[in-house]
Structures are given as structure tokens and as C-alpha cells.
């Protein structure tokens, strides 16, 4: 019962990515409306975020996408060591990203800025919404980083076991697509939260 055309596996992954785009899209609907309605509060909110962390995380994810893309090129050329380097590199980037997030969120928690906190309840509505959206969107995004890292880790193991090769690279290709999508979403999150002026 082998499928007739292996390109279907890639199509299936793209279709799944579309669902992820729409999933985050719902949150961006809320962002768009509240940004339009409370622009000054959103500017204040962005000023309270640490732009440095945002920039570093953006760079990290872009670099990680490069690593994964290089991994695909490598597997097709049979450069197994580069595949492994790419995967290890992407995983390291993901880990650093998550550590950064943890630190960032930690700072905010310490300053009384978390969902339902007194500070936010007493803040102007727009500021409360800015941080509400910040936590929900970056939280959901962080969950997807974890999922993406899990997929890449599985690929890593399978490359070591020589189960992923130039002829059988669908899992790596699809995991890569997922990872790139997670990067894509961050490309929009970054300016919308850290660069509001």
C-alpha cells in the first residue's frame, strides 16, 4: 500500500503548516484590532520590553533556519557531517532562544507583569492587552519551538542511524519546513512587540 507519489509527504506537511499559520493568525487578528485601538499603550508596552533580547532572539532563529536549510542541502549532497552540524546548530539555537525567553519572562514576572497580575489589572486597558497578547503569542510560539526541536532531535538520531539519506530525506525536509515556519512567525512577532514606536 505504498503511496504512489512520495511528493505527497511534503504536500501533507505544507498543508499542516497552513493550519499553523491560521492558528497564529487568530491571535494576530486580536493584535491588529487592539493595536489600532490602543496604539499609545502599545508603544508604552514595547518600551517596557527588552529590545536587546528581541534582536538577539531574532538573529538566533534566522541563523538556526540557515543551519537547517544547510542540513537539507548537505543531505542531498551526501555530506553527512554537515547535516549533523546543521541539526546540532539548530538545536543549540533553539535551546538558547528558550533560555532567553525564560530570562525575559522571569524579569517581567519579577516586575509584576504577568497575566492577571495586580500591576496589569490596574494598568490602562491597552497596556494590559499588550502584555496579555505578548504572553499568549510568545508562549504559543515557545511551545512550537519545543515541538520543532523535538522533530529536529528525532532527525538527528535517524541521521546517526543512517535512516535519513539522500534517497530518504522526507522526514528531514518536513522537519525543516516546520522549523522555518516557527522562524517565520517570529519574524512577525519581533517587530510587532519589540519595535512599536
Amino acid at each position, binding site marked *: *500500500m505504498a*503511496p*504512489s*507519489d512520495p*511528493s*505527497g509527504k511534503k*504536500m*501533507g506537511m505544507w*498543508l*499542516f503548516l*497552513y*493550519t*499553523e499559520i*491560521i*492558528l*497564529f*493568525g*487568530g*491571535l494576530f*487578528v*486580536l493584535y491588529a*484590532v*487592539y493595536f489600532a*485601538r*490602543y496604539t499609545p*499603550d502599545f508603544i508604552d508596552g514595547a518600551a517596557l520590553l527588552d529590545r536587546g533580547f528581541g534582536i538577539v532572539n531574532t538573529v538566533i532563529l534566522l541563523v538556526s533556519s540557515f543551519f537547517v536549510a544547510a542540513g537539507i542541502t548537505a543531505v542531498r549532497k551526501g555530506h553527512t557531517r554537515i547535516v549533523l552540524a546543521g541539526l546540532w546548530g539548530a538545536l543549540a539555537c533553539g535551546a538558547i532562544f528558550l533560555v532567553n525567553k525564560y530570562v525575559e519572562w522571569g524579569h517581567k514576572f519579577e516586575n509584576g507583569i504577568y*497575566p*492577571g497580575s495586580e500591576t*496589569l*489589572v490596574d494598568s*490602562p*486597558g*491597552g*497596556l*494590559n*492587552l499588550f502584555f*496579555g*497578547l505578548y*504572553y*499568549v503569542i510568545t508562549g*504559543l510560539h515557545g511551545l512550537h519551538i519545543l515541538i520543532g526541536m523535538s522533530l529536529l532531535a528525532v532527525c538527528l538520531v535517524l541521521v546517526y542511524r543512517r535512516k535519513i539519506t539522500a534517497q530518504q530525506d522526507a522526514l528531514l525536509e518536513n522537519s525543516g519546513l516546520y522549523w522555518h515556519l516557527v522562524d517565520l512567525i517570529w519574524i512577525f512577532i519581533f517587530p510587532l512587540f519589540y519595535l512599536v514606536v
Partner: protein
Amino acid sequence: MEAVKSFYDTPVPARFTGMLSWLITLDHKRIALMYLFAILFWFLLAVLLGGAIRLELMFPGANIMHADLYNSAFTLHGVIMIFLFIIPALPAVFGNFFLPIHIGADDVYFPRLNLLSWYLYMTGGVIAIVSLFSDGFPDTGWTFYVPFSISTHTNVSTAVFAAFILGFSSMLTGLNFITTIHKMRVKTMGWLQMPLFTWSLYATSWVQLLATPVITITLVLVMVERVFNVGLFDPARGGDPILYQHLFWIYSHPAVYIMILPGMGVISEIIPVFARKSIFGYKAIVASSMAIAIAGSLVWAHHMYTSGMSDTAVFVFSLLTFVVAIPSAIKVFSWVATLYKGAIQMTPPLFLSLCFIYLFSVGGLTGLVLGAAGANIHVHDTHFVVAHFHFTMFGGTGFAFFAALHYWWPKMFGRMYDFKKAYAAAVLVTAGFMLHYVPMFVLGLQGMPRRYYDYLPQYAAGNFFAGFGAMFMILGIGLMMVNLMVSFRRAEAAGPDPWGGVTLEWTVPSPPPVHNFVTDPDVLDYPYDFSRVVAGAVKKSRGT
């Protein structure tokens, strides 16, 4: 034809037997039947709940339930019917069983994902059952509007989590079907040679894929708000409750097209067969299916005219709503035109399809009343709405489901049912349906609100008659189900083609073998070419 083993006797993977050969199957036909079993359970449960609701409403005052229980009852009825019956039924049962066969394939593209979809469906159902206990099933209505869904103490989070899981089942089925249709059509079948049921599943699958994530995130937000009190929809915290409604209906309006498109596909299959005539306007039906999917994604806020949204939005969405009625009407014209001057053979599937056409048309026309912003102010949240959506979802999809059962029963189970009882059941259900729901249009116009356990004395007569209609309807459904089940006791096997169909399922044995085809599928140049069927019938009638 020599005896070929049916899929019942040959499990895939081969090493499992008994229950496991069903629970760990990769055969799309077995998965379809597992869905059918569960779906019929949920349908019948929700029907009984509906019966209880109508019994309560049959007489003024609190009869068998008080307000709180009533609120949970109609919420549960809605949640089960929508998420556990109408949305999955046609794609998961008949789509799973027949989509691969219709395109000459031996299974769907992702058989294991297909099985996962079933397990997600069952898990969602179990979680819904769990939410019945402790704090009680939600009393919010199936729409879970904020702020009440956030503040009420009933099990909203659990119930909403069930719907969240069911959403994944739906999305993955859509993903599977799209990939299957793109990549597994037999080489000789181009896009414009696919059966219309396949096209309807294609359009439906795109909506399932793209719209469902919106309800996913919306339900997640309800859970997040209940736990973390973020305030995204709370006016005191800057939020806007109307945005919840936007997000909710951005899914839930396209969802009604998920419900009806496959039903229309079934009707497009049945009518040509029993008119012995090619479907009128194949390309128009294809185009209208895709148009309904697209246009249906643009009209969601017609559920929100009275919510407090801007007048501009009311105008825009009302205009677009009238546009989306057009492709549906094209289909009705095509079906009727197919029947015109056809050599009609009456059978239970055709009878049910004719009932569908009438009931769905009434539903569609009353949708225009609701879509017109001015008229909507008068009937919003009244029983007029309840009648409208039951005409479209039950008279439409529900009857299409009955029709599909009666059309494909001999193929799936190798047995034919008794026609007389099938007709009797269909008449009873249809007559009961009319007596049940037509009074609701009147009650709605007279101002009776929906979702109220009690009403003013002037509404008593309408509710009383509606209750009678409900009883006939439920009797009819019972008779229909019993009649179908009893067919298993018959000794005589149904042949491969009891109806004279031209799509590929009628070229294989009943029930089909595990890999669907015995010889290579022979695709017609045009999917509804009845010349061979007609020639064969003529030969037979001449005794040659």
C-alpha cells in the same frame, strides 16, 4: 465473478485479529465503519436530548427540567450534534470509505494519520462525557460566548477541550483527503473526471483545513482566560467581547459549509443514477462547490448583526451573504434539471434526496430572511433561527446522511434492506420534521426567544404541535435504523451494482476487497456517462 475475499476477512496489517484488527487497522474502509458506529451512537443520543428539550417545551412552565438543566441540555445537544455528528459524519464515514475507491486508489495517502483522526475523534467524545460530571455540562450554548463562558462555574474548560481535540481530528482528515485527491488519482482520471462527491470532499477538506485552526485558537483562549484571567475579551481590562464572536464565527460559519458540501456531493451522486441521466452542469457544480467554500469564508458576521458591531460591517456582511446563496441555488437547479426528462426509478435513496432538495431549499430561503440585516433584527435569537438551521443542517445534511446510508449500504455491508419500511420511515421522518420545525418559524416571527426553557402563553399551541412532530420524527428515525440493522439477517447478498451506478465503487464486489479493486479501475471519459447502463437496461427489458 469468482469469490474475492472482502475487506472484512482480510485485515491490514495482517497480523491482527478480532477487535485489534479494527482498533489497529490501516484500512480506510474499517476506519469508516468505526466512525459510523460511534457517529450513530452520538447522533441517537443527541436526538433523544432534543426530544427531551421538546418535551420540556411542549407545555408551559418547568415540566421535566428547570432552567439550569435546560441550558445544559441545549448546549449538550448542540455540541454533540455539531462537533460529534454533523461535521464529521459524511467525510469521516462516506468520505473515508469511498473517496479512495472513487479515484481508483487503494487507500488514503496517510493511512496511519487516518487512524489517528479516528482516535482523536473518540478521545474528544470521551472528554465530552467527562465534562458531564462534577460541575455539570456547560450552560453557555454551543457558541460559548464570553463573558459568560469565562465566568460560569460549569465545566466549560473540559467541554471546550473536547471540541479542541475534535478539531484536530477534522483538520487531519481534511489534510489527508486533499493529499489523497492530489496524489493518488488513477492515471486515467483527470480533475474533471472525478465524481462530484470527490469534488465536494475536496472543497470541504480545504475549509476543514483552513477554518478549524481558528476555532482551535478561540477555544484555547477561552481556557486561557478561565485559568489566567488575561482580560483579552474583558471590557474592564481593555478587551472587546465582540472580538470573541468574530473569531468564533470565522470558523463556525465556514463550518456549516463543511457540513453541507459533502451532503450536496452525495445528492449529486444519487440523482443521476436514479434519473438514468448524466448530471446537468457537472462543471457548474464543481465551480459552485469551490465558490461556496470561498464565499462562505467571507460572511461570518451575519451571525452578529445585533452584537454591537458597526453598521458598516452589518451592511458589508449582509451583502456578501446574499452572494453566497447563488452557488447553492445553482446546485438545486442542476439537480432538478437532471431529473427533468430522466428515466426515473424511485428508490429510498432517491426519495430521501428529493426530501433533501425540498427541505434544504426551505432552509436556504429562510437563510435569506436571516441574512437581510433589517429582517434579522426581528428574528435574531428567536425560534426562527432554530427552525432555519434545523432545515439546513438536519433537513439538509441529516437527510443527505440518511440518503448516503441507503445508497451505499449494500456496497458497505453486502446486504439490501427492505424498501417498504425504508419509505415508511422516510415519510414518517419528513412529515414529523415538517410538523416539528414549521411551527418554529411562526413562533419565531411571533417573537418567541430561543434557549428559553419557558415561554409566554401565546406560544403554547405552536410548541405543543412541535412536540408532536418531534415524536413522529424520532419514531421515524428509530424505524429507519432498525430497518437498516435488520438487513444483516437477510440471506441474499447484494450484488456489486444494485442501482446501475457509473462511479467506480459499483465496479467492485459488495463489500469490496481490502485493496478495493480486483482489476484495474476502468475510468469513464465522463464521470456520469450512463450510456452503458441504459443500453444494458434496454437489452434486459427486451429479453436479449
